[in-house]
């Protein structure tokens, strides 16, 4: 694939002034060079825009009930139709998308950070630190996450979105931390890490300066995968009524309610389901292209 004119000019200019293009810029250029990456990013941006700016232009809010329209198909006043209660499906879907996207991003950041810290400390220090941390990881792997989250759902009542996201993140870091641990063990043997150690740089600083940057590509990809994992877990929990609690809504709760009426009132099911599928698809596309863009062995964008 040939580079677009301006991009080529930019790189030529960089080379002329003796600067090396920064890694971020290289990765970004490669990422946006693929059709998959552009599509995923555009889709995700569009969904965010819709979820957060949409309510500003919508005629109804998610708590409103229109007592003149129960279970009506989409129309000019209710763009996505209404539910049995008279709630506006458009407003509810946007509110659900807000919650699901927020939870997904928050969980991804927290769980990936935990995986990075736990894995790198275990791999760097080995010995008792390693055994203790990995034992905790095994224990959390063996505990059925869904069951624990469901039992704790009364504690996660309305307004405790942050606590809910933290609980979700608690069950998503274990496998990645094991991979990080293995890679840290290898990185620890490299010359520049040894050099830093012999110069007396404290271990914590070595981990943050030298070990974690080496794992950046793995961690970024893991974070994107965790976004969709978190959104899907939240959906499953909400489907059974253990997730985000009423009066607030999430996509999972909407899908659960909608699936009961989907046969004769398709608008109660398909809009929420569609937004969810699009969101997860977009995140997956972004993750896949990011993996290719970060791979140092790969050539330019395909």
């Amino acid at each position: 694939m040939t580079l677009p004119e301006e991009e080529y000019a930019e790189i030529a200019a960089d080379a002329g002034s003796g600067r090396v293009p920064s890694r971020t810029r290289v990765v970004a250029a490669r990422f946006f060079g693929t059709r998959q990456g552009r599509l995923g990013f555009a889709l995700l941006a569009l969904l965010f825009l819709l979820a957060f700016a949409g309510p500003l232009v919508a005629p109804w809010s998610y708590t409103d009930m229109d007592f003149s329209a129960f279970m009506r198909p989409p129309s000019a006043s209710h763009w996505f139709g209404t539910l049995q209660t008279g709630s506006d499906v458009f407003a509810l879907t946007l509110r659900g998308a807000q919650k699901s996207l927020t939870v997904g991003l928050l969980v991804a950041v927290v769980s990936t950070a935990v995986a990075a810290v736990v894995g790198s400390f275990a791999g760097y220090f080995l010995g008792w630190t390693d055994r203790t941390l990995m034992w905790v990881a095994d224990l959390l792997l063996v505990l059925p996450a869904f069951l624990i989250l469901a039992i704790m759902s009364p504690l996660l009542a309305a307004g405790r979105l942050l606590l809910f996201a933290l609980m979700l993140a608690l069950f998503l870091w274990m496998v990645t931390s094991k991979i990080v641990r293995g890679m840290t063990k290898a990185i620890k043997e490299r010359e520049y890490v040894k050099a830093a150690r012999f110069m007396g740089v404290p271990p914590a600083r070595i981990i943050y300066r030298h070990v974690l940057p080496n794992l950046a590509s793995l961690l970024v990809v893991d974070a994107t995968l965790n976004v969709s994992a978190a959104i899907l877990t939240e959906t499953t929990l909400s489907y059974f009524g253990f997730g985000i609690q009423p009066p607030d809504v999430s996509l999972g709760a909407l899908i659960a309610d909608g699936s009961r009426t989907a046969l004769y009132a398709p608008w109660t099911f398909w809009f929420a389901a569609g937004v969810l599928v699009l969101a997860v698809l977009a995140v997956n596309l972004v993750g896949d292209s990011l993996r290719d863009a970060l791979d140092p062995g790969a050539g330019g964008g395909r």
Partner: protein
Amino acid sequence: MAGFLLRRLVNYAVLIAVATSLAYMLAALALDPRSNYEGRNPRPPAAVVDAQLSLYNLNDRTPLVRRYLRWAGGVLRGDLGRTWNGDRVDAEVRRRVGVTLRLIVLGLVLGSVAGVLTGALAAVRQYGWFDRLSTMAAFVVLAVPTVVLANMLIIMAVWLNDRLGVQVFLVSGEHTPGLDGGVGAGLLDRVKHLALPTVSLALGQIAVYSRYQRNMMLDVLDADFVRTAMAKGLRRRTALVKHALRTALIPAVTYFAFTFGSLLVGATITESVFGWHGMGEELVASIRSNDVNMVAAISCFAALAVLTASLAADVLHAVLDPRVRVS
């Protein structure tokens, strides 16, 4: 090898014990079996409720440690306790495991075999039409949550049944109760019930396994041993199946085993949507009905399933990979 296996088993036993105890404590603290009795109309006298709860070791006025010790003692003797209305937990679990197994085994086998074949075929013709098509399809399937997929299948099946005027697919339960007409009719009835849940389980598996298998296969296709095999006169097809596929299967085996372990309680959605009364459905029901002992039993079962699966993966790994046996 024996020493290594023994140490592993001891470690697993400790993990299961700690995980189950944690789940019991959490359930005993967070769930409220008392409300099941006090919500009744007419409301039973407090002394009666207390006596009932104490009988089943569910009384929240007994200190947690006393309840835990009594429960743990029972579990050590093989007694998992009683549900909140007095049924034996172990009998209930045994019945439900059978249902879940009948539900997931076919879907798992179909899904893993088809997934591996799809992935291997896609890798052999990388960037060919099959590769592109299967990649896109896998992405779409992975993006569709099980809830949506299962409901889509039901909507499609109902539409198809209406169109054909015959009940080709039955969407609820394991079999039609009170059906008579011999073994043949009974079997056909079960197949009709099983078709949709199997498809919904298998589709997800195919999507996941084909992605893994494709990447593993790509890694080994250019390996020296495959090229050597072909240079020595083996046909491409034989070399790919005997050498490349076998090697690429090794990492996938770990995933098979883990999926099997986690699906035993993880098929919650499939069971709920299609109305099968298995472990997954019981998991949700036991939390709704404040059933402390049942929750603990399910966690114990889940831990056991995951660890058995990981042990099985280790053994299979050794069978497929001679290097493991040597070292």
